[in-house]
Structure formats: C-alpha cells, structure tokens
C-alpha cells in the first residue's frame, strides 16, 4: 500500500505541493481530481522519481519502504508504474524490444527468470487482444508517429504487459474518444484485484464512470481539500471545483 505523509515539494524554488496526506490501501483505486495547476502532475512525477523536484518535507512509503530514496528503476522494480500524461517518443526503438527489455530488467531485478522472445510475444499478444489493439503496435517505434489516443493506449498496453502492483494514471483519459476511453478503462479494470491498486489522476468525471474508484480526492493549490466516495466525482461534475471549495490555484 501507498502512504503519502505531509508531502511538500516544488520545482525551481516554487512550492507546488503544500502538505499532501494520502493513503491508498492495497486493492483500492483512488482518483485525484483537481483544476489545472493544482499539482496533480507534480505528484505523479514525484511518485515515479523524476529528477528536478525538491521535496522539502514529508515522506512517501510503498509497502513501508521509503520511496523518495529509490531511483526510478528501483520504484519500477518495487511495482510502481506511471502512465505518462505525455508519453515520450523513442526514435528507432521498437515497442516490442522496449517492452521486452523493460520486462526482463524488472524480472531480473526481482530474481525471476527472463522471458524469451516467444514467451514475451505470447504475453504481449494477449495484452493487445484484451485492449483491442492491432499487433503492429509492437513493431512500431515507441510512440513515434502515434496519435494522441494511440500514445495513451500504448501506456495502458505497457501497464498490461509489465503488470505493476501500483499504477499512477496521469490524465490517461485526455485526448481519448469514448470508445478508446472504454478500452483504457477495461485495461485498468482487468488488473483490479486484491494485489493491485491505482491512483487515477483526471480532470473529468467521465473516466470514473468506467473506472469506478473506491475513493475520490480533490486536489487544489497543492493540498487535498476534499475526500469522499465515487459520489464526490459526480458532485464535482455538477457544481464544479468551486462548489466543493476548491478554487483554481
């Protein structure tokens, strides 16, 4: 399970997160909603270990381990996964090669046997089928020439293949049409179970119609200002952030 306690952090000397407290127990999916500039993406980057952020106070624990001292790859080995809001292009690097290299790096670090090409393809094809994606997705270079929607679906594909224990989805719904949104939601729902938890960061309630969260938190100006059940998301949809006491920062 993930515990964030009193987290204060920023970038370039500017404080963005002003004391975040959040606990996501094992097996639960929580949503974070909030206006632009509230610190949603900062939180996801700090969880994944991006350099350049300064943490001035607080701690993040994953299964009781201090996440902030871990490198990004150690966090991946521990089971954290970030679905990027803006997936990065890797020219010349094939998706299959990328994913197999990543998967085997994780397996090696966990003391598991590596998958050979055949075993990997079997796993990848199953994931593609479940996400209704064409096989040629594996042959293409990572995110190069992908449409916005394809990039987001590729993130979910990676998640389905790498099978993290904790996924952070950073606005994975933005730029998706309703059909793609459903596919992405199904991809996340397929992973749901007692050993999987997720933090779904979104602007809009519509994703939460398909990935029904256990808890919803409203982030505003670097703090969680409201928490509640799925009904909180619907209240936000009706009355806006101002209605729940979360003015834009």
């Amino acid at each position, binding site marked *: 399970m993930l515990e964030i306690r009193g987290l204060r952090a920023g970038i370039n000397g500017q404080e963005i997160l002003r004391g975040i407290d959040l606990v996501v127990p094992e097996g639960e999916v929580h949503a974070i909603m909030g206006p632009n500039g509230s610190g949603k993406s900062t939180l996801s980057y700090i969880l994944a270990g991006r350099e350049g952020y300064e943490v001035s106070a607080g701690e993040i624990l994953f299964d009781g381990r201090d996440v902030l001292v871990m490198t990004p*790859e150690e966090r991946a080995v521990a089971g954290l996964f970030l679905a990027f809001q803006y997936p990065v292009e890797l020219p010349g690097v094939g998706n299959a090669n990328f994913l197999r290299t990543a998967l085997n790096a*994780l397996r090696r670090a966990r003391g598991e046997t590596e998958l050979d090409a055949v075993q990997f393809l079997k796993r990848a094809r199953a994931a593609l089928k479940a996400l209704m994606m064409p096989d040629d997705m594996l042959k293409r270079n990572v995110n190069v020439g992908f449409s916005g929607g394809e990039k987001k679906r590729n993130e979910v594909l990676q998640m389905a293949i790498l099978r993290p224990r904790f996924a952070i989805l950073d606005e994975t719904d933005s730029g998706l049409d309703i059909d793609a949104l459903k596919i992405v939601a199904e991809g996340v729902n397929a992973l749901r179970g007692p050993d999987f938890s997720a933090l779904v960061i979104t602007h809009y309630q519509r994703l939460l119609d398909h990935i029904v969260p256990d808890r919803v938190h409203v982030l505003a100006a670097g703090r969680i200002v409201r928490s509640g059940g799925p009904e909180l998301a619907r209240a936000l949809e009706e009355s806006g952030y101002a209605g729940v006491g979360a003015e834009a920062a």
Partner: protein
Amino acid sequence: MAAVTETLDTVQAATQSGYKWGFETAIEMDIAPKGLNEDTIRLISARKQEPAWLLEWRLKAFAAWRETTEPHWARVAHPPIDYQDIHYYAAPKPKPGPKSLDEVDPELLRTYEKLGIPLKERAILAGVEGAGTEQNVAIDAVFDSVSVATTFRETLAKAGVIFCPISEAVREHPELVRKYLGSVVPAGDNFFAALNSAVFTDGSFVFVPKGVRCPMELSTYFRINARNTGQFERTLIIAEEGAYVSYLEGCTAPQRDENQLHAAVVELVAFDDARIKYSTVQNWYPGNAEGKGGIYNFVTKRGACRGARSKISWTQVETGSAITWKYPSCILQGEGSVGEFYSVAVTNNHQQADTGTKMIHIGANTRSTIISKGISAGHSNNTYRGLVRMMPKAAGARNYTQCDSLLIGDQCGAHTVPYIESRNPTARVEHEATTSKIAEDQLFYCRSRGLSQEDAVNLIVNGFCKDVLKELPMEFAVEAQKLLAVSLEGSVG
C-alpha cells in the same frame, strides 16, 4: 631480432583497466629499427621478397610523401608525430608457412579468444583443424603486419575467388596486383596514403571474377600488437562484372600509453553490375579517460564504381581510436552506379573523430546515399565532413544525405561540415541534418519502466543508430551493439 616479450603481469595490468581488449600477446617478433628512409623501405620489400616493380613503386611513394605535408584541415588536434620514431616493420618470426591451424602459434589462437571473436568465427578457426563443417565466414587474420592464418581458401578457390594476404597476391597474382594497386588511391594521393604506399606490410587481397557471387562473408581482424609499430595495412578488392562480395573488417588493439599511428589504405574496384559491401567495426584503443594514449587512425578508403550499375556500400561503426580521420569514398564513374555510406561514429572522453565520405558523381544517373550518425559524449569532438560533387556529365544524378548528431552531456561537441558542389543542373542533392540531446524525459521514461540509466542510454543510442546498424551483416550488428554499449559506459550521470 626478437624484441617484445611481455609477461603475464602486463596482461593482467592491462585487462584490469577499462579497455576490455587491452592485452598483448607474447609472440616472438621480427622488428625493423625505428625510422623511415629508403633503407627501411628496401628492408621491408626484401623481407617480403617483393618484385622490383613494387620496390620501385614504394620508393616513388616515399618520394611523394616527402613532398607532401601532414594535412591539418580536420577538426582534430594532436601533438606532432615523429615519423622517425616508429618501427615500420614487425613480423611474427618466420616459420614454415602454416598449412593448418595446428601449425599456427597457439598464442595467436588464444589471442583470438581474448579478442572475443564471435563464436561462429571461432568455430571456423576450430573447423580448420577438424571437419569441414558448414562455414560462411572466412577470416584472413592479419596479426600485426603479416597474415598468419588464412582460412577457407579452398572453398573460395572453387568459386574462383581469390582471398589472401596482399603480400601473397604479389607473388601469386602479380599481374592483378600490379594492374589495380594504386589505381583508386594513387601512391601520392595524400600524406597518409603516400606513407602507406611506401611502407605497407600487409593486408588483404580479394578478387571476385566475372559473374561470381562470393559464397561467404570475408572477414579480417586487424590488430596492433607490438609497441610503436605503425600499422600500415593495404587492402585491395576487385569485383569483376556482375560479381558480389561482402567484406567485414574489425579491429581491436592492446592498451598503450604511447600513441600509435595507423594509416591504412583500402581500394575497391567494381565493374559493370558488380557489388561490393564493405563493413567495418573499428575499436582501436581510444586512450584512457583523461585522453592519454590511444590510436591515431588516419585511413584512406576509396571505391571506384567503374562499371555501369555497379554499387559500393561502406558501412562503418567507429567507436575506437583517439583520433579518427577517415572518409570512405565512392567514385561513381559507371552510368547508373550507386554509392552508399552508412556510418556510426561514437566519441567519448577525449576522443576526436573527423569522419565522413566523398561521393564523386561522374557518370549519368549515378546515385548516392549518405547516412551518418554521430554520437558524442564526455569531452569528445565528433565531426561529419562530407563532399558531394556532381561533375558536368552527371546528368540526372542524385544524392541524399542525412547527418544526425546525438549529444550526451554538455561538454562534448558535434559538427557537421557538408561540402556540396554541383556542375550539372539536372543533378539533385538533398541534405538533412539534425542535432539532438538525449533528453532527460527519454531517460526518465525508460527508467520508470525499469531500465537502468546505462541500459536506457544504450537503448536510445541503438535506436538512433538503427538505420546504420541494419546495414551490417547480422553477426557484426550484434557485436556493434555491444560495442556501442561499452563505448558509452559511464557517459551519463
């Protein structure tokens, strides 16, 4: 005059340091005194029992060399080279010619093992002693200056292909050597080519007759071994009408404190419809992390597409050497002939590379493609220097050039110097160039998926080089990828 004897300690000391292939083999050497004069050249020629015409040719080249001066237009800097402080000849102590690998110095075979010669090719070396199993790579092993072991001559001979040390070709096929030697790179072509012509000791000779497709990849491993021995290889490859040959060249060198000069010359000749594919993986000792030591690699490589529709492809992966000065070129004379240059040049620490190509379009409808990928890390400097020249008769000729530079860190430099000359209004020249840095977000993206920083760099670099690596024969491509990884170790973070 046995000179170099090395101890196990040296081997250990060398292999403990960064350069994986830094070791020296204790084989008795026959070595010429330092210095270059006509006597040195006479000595080399005599040792090699050369005919008078060749000695004459060498002496003319030497005269030309004395007339020229070292070129300084490249973006490289080095202390002055004392050409009189170099041994120009070193040969393994003469023994009766090896009839099989049983007769080859076992030390040499161990050297191959240490060199990490691909398993497939080691199997071939073993195969000489045992049964003639299925083989498709032949190695003409150039150990220092004299070819010691040549394999698979028989299979090749059946096909009519000649593949042998050039010194042997001088004896066995003098008419061919005399006809083509210096016909692409004249003895006085440039300072380093003239030096090579005067003092070259050995190299490979390949002749593929009309209509023959060479039945295997031809492979040569070059290796600098003795202290202060300049390496002056001379390679000559001729493909007659409709012939095809693929030639692979790979280099490693033992670790040294002193700079070592390497000035090779490679000449290729392709007649009507002939194709020559020449691939290089260059991994000479680059010097240590502070820039001390390392090979000076001043190479002249040129191919002549003499026949219509002939094609010459140069593919190179350059990761080694302190200084690389190398411009594999194509003279596109035959109508519709094709020249290609695919290059990956990696520089790290204090390495300097000034490399590129020249495509000289003489004939009508000639075509050339240049894909250059430069990767700079550490404090290194990496320059692409390329010339595309469209001559007046090159009607309808086309060139496409793509030069991409990748920077790792902020202490290194990448430079692109294209020269384009067009004297035919119907010729088309396209040039694209990009410079990019390995972006933080690319590294972070890979690492967030579980890759280590170094694996992430390797993946990104290999992706960047993919267009070139795919041109390499399979067994080389795998080695080249590993080499890129080794070359860039510690370049990030």
